Each structure stands twice: as C-alpha cells, then as structure tokens.
C-alpha cells in the first residue's frame, strides 16, 4: 500500500484546518466595518514605457496619501496594491487576477499600455471588478471592445488626435505624414489622425510604424523627410519618443517638418532638451491649466515631489477623483452599485468640468493643444496652451472612435 504513505494523519489535520479557515475567512471579512478600500494598480513600472508607469504610481500615491489624511473614503482607509507588469499584457492580466483572488480587490486603475488594458477588460465581468483607466488611449476600449465595468477617465487617443486635427484645420500645413509605435495605441491614433486629415481635405501622404523599443530612427527620419510632408504626426511615448526626438533634432528635421503629437509628457522635453522646442501636441493634462483646483493641486504636488505634475500624473489624479465621486455617490465599493453611480458622475476638478457619459463610459472633457517653448524658471522647454476645444467637439459619438465631420 505504498501509494498511501503520502497521506498522514497530520496532513489530514492540516487540510481540515486550512479548509475550515478558508470557510471562516469571508465571514471574518464581512464582520470588520473599517476594512480598507483596496485599489489595484498593475503598472508598467519597467520596460520602454516605464516612465509612464512611474508617473501613474506617483499620481496614485499622492492622491491616496491626501485622501487618507482627510479620513479616507466612506470613513475607510484606502490602500494601494502595486505590481509591476513590465508592460506585458499577459503579466498585467496575471497580476490583476492575483489582486482579485489574493486581496479581494475589485477596483483597478493605472494599467499602463492599451495592449495591457485590452487584455484585462474581457476578464472584468468574471472578476466582478471595475477598471477606471487613467492612461489607456486606444479608442476601441470605449467602442468595439467596450465592457460595462470599464470606465475611461482620461482623454483617449482619438480625442487627442481630434484636438490636434481641429487645430490643424486653421493651420497653414498641407501635406501630412505620420509615425507611430507599432502596437495598439500607435496604430489607433495614426488611423484616427489619417481619417481626420482626409475629412479636412488635407493631403495625407503616408505613415510608418516603428517597433516598440526602436533605438535607431535614422531610416524613419529619412522616410519622413522624403515624404515631402510639411508636418508629421508622431504617436510615441517613453524611451522611443525620447530617442526619436533627439535624433530628429540632430538631423535638423524640425527645420523642414513641423512635428505634431497626440500626447506629450514633461519627461520628454526634460530628456531631450532643445530638440523638443516648437513641437505642437495635444496634452491630456497640463500643469498650466488655469483654475483654482489645479493651482491647489500643482502646489500640493510641488511640495511633495519638488516638480510640477506631469501629464499622466494629472490624469491619474483626475481618475481617482472620479472614482471617489462614484464611491461617495454609491456609498459603497460594491461593484454593481459603484458601476451604476460612476455612469453619471460629474466633477469640477483640476481639468475643469468632466462628466462620464453613460453610453460608453468615456469621460467627456475639453481638449488642449500646446506648443513647447523655453520659459523662465524651467531648464527644459515647457508647454504653452495655444488652443482649447470643448468636450462635445473632441469626444467621438458614443461607442465610436472616428468622427463624422
């Protein structure tokens, strides 16, 4: 009877103990009134977009610190669950699943890459969890890939591309080229820009996509130069964007071609210096927004970190403010109630008026176009707001990612 030697009396006792503990645990949890609210953030803290993940992390940390100092939410302390996904969609799903199963987390934010978000959203129903995006640009998340438990607090790629293209309607440029990082967000953003330019009767001469992690952009720069375009739309982020702009500057590309971009972080002009001067871009959040809430936020941020808040840091803050408004409205963090409450949340915060719309859970908000220039008090080029478009002009129709006009 050799095969039975593995099961001893002690082992049976152990199993029985762990089993009964498992049965008791849900009861224990329900019993404690001040159970902390857990917010799961599986972030891309490393990898080519690690700098974006780091911004989201700081945004989460300061918001939670500030909120907890005011007594948390619904009188409960807020706890951040932080994991690094390296920007890998499979890891993002795995780490989020761990947070659900191990920590009982049902609220996610900060998932960094659109490719990660697209991998996570189909699981939300099964996990009975809400995900409030603070960063994901891909238009499909509020269109063909929409799921009821997903909310997008941030400006999407179509909305950013739209703001730039609305600006370009009255600009003198005629021939446009586009370059994007070769993954979900880059492809989506360039596609929207292309259809916008065609709708505006501008000449769109072509596009090219560079693999994530490209180090040498000389060939791409040659292509842009040869295209005959007088403006080029760039959808990049992180290390790739820094490398592209540094090298474009070294080739004097901006002297011939106006560089445009869907979104820009301050980390980029900090890393490339003068090579970023003159760049025109949409910006999801800019520390220069002129309203009292934002001034308060910038002061708080500067005191904590010694710098002004960056693009994704402001976006992460806003996403959590929307979450807080939803939780307070629902008076609970239970998934269904929170979802119903979030569907009609409106706040006036650091970016002004922001309203979630029920049909596709996109936060409708105004869009800005900035130009980078040298400014006093900064040792790197900083954005200046050159145009603002209201939310009803920049948001696409419900569950769409292209525009009719």
């Amino acid at each position, binding site marked *: 009877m050799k095969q039975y030697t593995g099961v001893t009396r002690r082992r049976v006792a152990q199993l029985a103990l762990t089993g009964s503990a498992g049965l008791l645990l849900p009861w224990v949890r329900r019993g404690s009134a001040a159970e902390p609210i857990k917010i799961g953030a599986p972030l891309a*803290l*490393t*990898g*080519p977009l*690690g*700098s974006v993940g*780091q911004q989201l992390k700081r945004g989460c940390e300061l918001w939670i610190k500030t909120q907890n100092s005011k007594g948390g939410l619904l009188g409960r302390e807020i706890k951040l669950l932080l994991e690094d996904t390296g920007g890998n969609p499979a890891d993002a799903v795995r780490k989020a699943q761990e947070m659900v199963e191990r920590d009982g987390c049902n609220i996610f934010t900060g998932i960094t890459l659109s490719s990660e978000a697209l991998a996570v959203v189909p699981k939300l129903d099964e996990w009975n969890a809400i995900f409030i995006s603070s960063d994901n640009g891909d238009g499909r998340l509020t269109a063909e890939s929409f799921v009821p438990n997903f909310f997008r607090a941030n400006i999407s790629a179509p909305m950013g591309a739209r703001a730039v293209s609305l600006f370009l309607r009255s600009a003198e440029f005629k021939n446009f080229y586009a370059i994007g990082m070769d993954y979900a967000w880059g492809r989506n953003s360039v596609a929207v820009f292309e259809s916008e330019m065609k709708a505006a009767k501008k000449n769109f001469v072509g596009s*090219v*996509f*560079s*693999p994530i*992690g*490209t*180090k*040498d952009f*000389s*060939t*791409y720069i*040659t*292509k842009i*130069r*040869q295209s005959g375009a007088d403006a080029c739309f760039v959808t990049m982020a*992180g*290390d790739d964007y*820094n*490398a592209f702009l*540094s*090298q474009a500057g*070294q*080739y*004097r590309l901006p002297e011939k071609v106006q560089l445009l971009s869907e979104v820009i972080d301050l*980390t980029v002009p*900090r*890393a*490339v*210096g003068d090579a970023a001067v003159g760049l025109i871009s949409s910006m999801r959040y800019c520390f220069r927004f002129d309203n009292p809430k934002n001034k308060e936020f910038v002061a708080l941020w500067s005191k904590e970190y010694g710098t002004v808040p960056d693009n994704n840091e402001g976006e992460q803050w806003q996403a959590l403010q929307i979450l807080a408004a939803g939780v307070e409205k629902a008076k609970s963090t239970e998934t269904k109630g929170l979802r119903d409450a979030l569907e009609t949340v409106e706040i006036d915060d650091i970016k002004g008026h922001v309203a979630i719309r029920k049909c596709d859970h996109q936060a409708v908000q105004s869009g800005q176009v900035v130009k980078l220039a040298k400014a006093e008090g900064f040792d790197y080029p900083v954005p200046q707001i050159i145009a603002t478009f209201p939310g009803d002009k920049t948001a696409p129709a419900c569950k769409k990612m292209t525009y009719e006009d």
Partner: protein
Amino acid sequence: MPLYAFLVVQSVNALSQAALLFFLGVGLTLIFGIMRIVNFAHGAFYMLGAFIGYSAVRLTGSFWLALALAPLAVGVVGALFEFGILRRLYRRDESAFLMVTFGLALVMTELIRLGWGPEALQVAPPPVFSGIVMLMDEPFPTYRLFLAGAGIVVALAIWQFLERTRLGLLIRATSQNAEMVHALGTDVNLVRSTVFGIGCGLAGVGGVFAAPLVTASIGMSATMIIDAFVIVIIGGMGSFPGSLLGAVLVAFVQVFGEYYLPDLALALMYLIMLAVLVFRPGGLLGKEA
C-alpha cells in the same frame, strides 16, 4: 534624392549603428572566448556606462572626459564582479553563470534606478560634433559620422591589441587552451579578470556613445542586448572578426530593412540568425564551422 545619394546616406547611418552594436558584441564575444560564459549582465554594463557618462559630463563639463572615465569605471566594476563572484563559480556548470549574470543585470538595473531615478537623462553630443554636414545635399549629423569613425578606430585598435601585445597574445592563448597557458606559468585568473573588465569597459564605451542618440535611460539596453547576442551568434561565439562582421551585417539589415520592408524589419535579423544556425551552427567566422 537620387538612389546613390540615398544609399550613401543610409550606409553611413548603418555604419554608425554598427559601431554601437560592435562595442557591445565584441565585449560579449571576448568574454565568451576566454571564459565560455554568456554574460547576461552585458546590457546592464552598457546602461551603467551611459549613466556614469551622464554624471561625468555633468561634473566635468566634458564629453571626452566622460568617454574616458565612464568605461574605466564600468571596467573596474566588471573586473571586481569577476574577481568577487564569478571566480567562485568556474567549477560549476554553465547554468550557474546564466543565473548569476542575469541576477546581476537585475540588481544593477535597480541600483541605477535608485541612484539616477527612473526618468531618462539627456547627454548632449560633444560641441565639435553637435552640428551637421551636408551629405549628398541632405543634412547629416556629424555625431553619426564620428560614431562610424570611432567604430572603425576602436575595431582596429582591438585587432592590433590582440595581435601585437603580450596581453593580447595571452588572451588568444587562454581562449585556445587555458590549462596550457596556466602550465606555462601565467596567472589565468588574472587574464580572466582583465578580459571581463575590458569586455564590460567596451560595453561602457558603447553606452556613452549611445547616450546622445537615445538618452541615458533604464530601458536603453533592452533591445540592444538582444541585437548584440544576435551579432555574436551570426559572427561566431568568441570570434573577434566575427563580431565585427555580425555588427555590420545586422546594422545594414536593420537600416535597409526598415526602409524597404518596414513590417518585416524585426524578423529579417532573426531570419539571418536562423539561417546561420542551420547552415553554419558555429557562426560565420566561428571555430566549429
């Protein structure tokens, strides 16, 4: 732009990239040739070179001083690592080296993040090479010309070093038969530490050279180190001319592939590697071939 002008411009671009790849690949191949170990931390040494280079430029105000100091510092770190840790593992099987050097890469990356922060840092090209020249009526950065030239100079210098100096002779001898060299009264351990240091120092040179192109950043080594492994496999593990040939081949395939077949650019490099592994498993200039 006429075709020949395009070809000239792109070829110089490819040469400048080949130079960067060569600095990484030649270090890898030297270390492999002597020690039969694959140094997974090579990319981290490359990154360390860029970050120390950044600090050296900030402190001294001179790119050239940084170019001298950073590789030296990286080389010393590499030699100390060999002396302190790798030396204890020579009796173990090869997987020990994989684990230890891979672990070192992770530790170094985190230390760099702690020391310099997560954000990318700007390193400007030296003022003499920050301008442009008109190459076939197109503006071309002088820094890239300089890189291409530096690659050729360093390749010649390493070749002469290996062929003409006593240390070079010892390195070649050790890579062929370490026991015999030891029996003839040479401290093989010292040769190993030195080669490991030199290899890492060369990665540091690559890091300083690359910083003005890609900024000093935590992610800068991720794709470069894969390219470096590919060129070493194509050229032949342990072969110095092989690493040179591999670097030039990969750089040209990347630059021209991205132009003519942008969707296949990444795959082309691996297809060549695959072909080499199938038809000349030891690499184009490797020993087993």
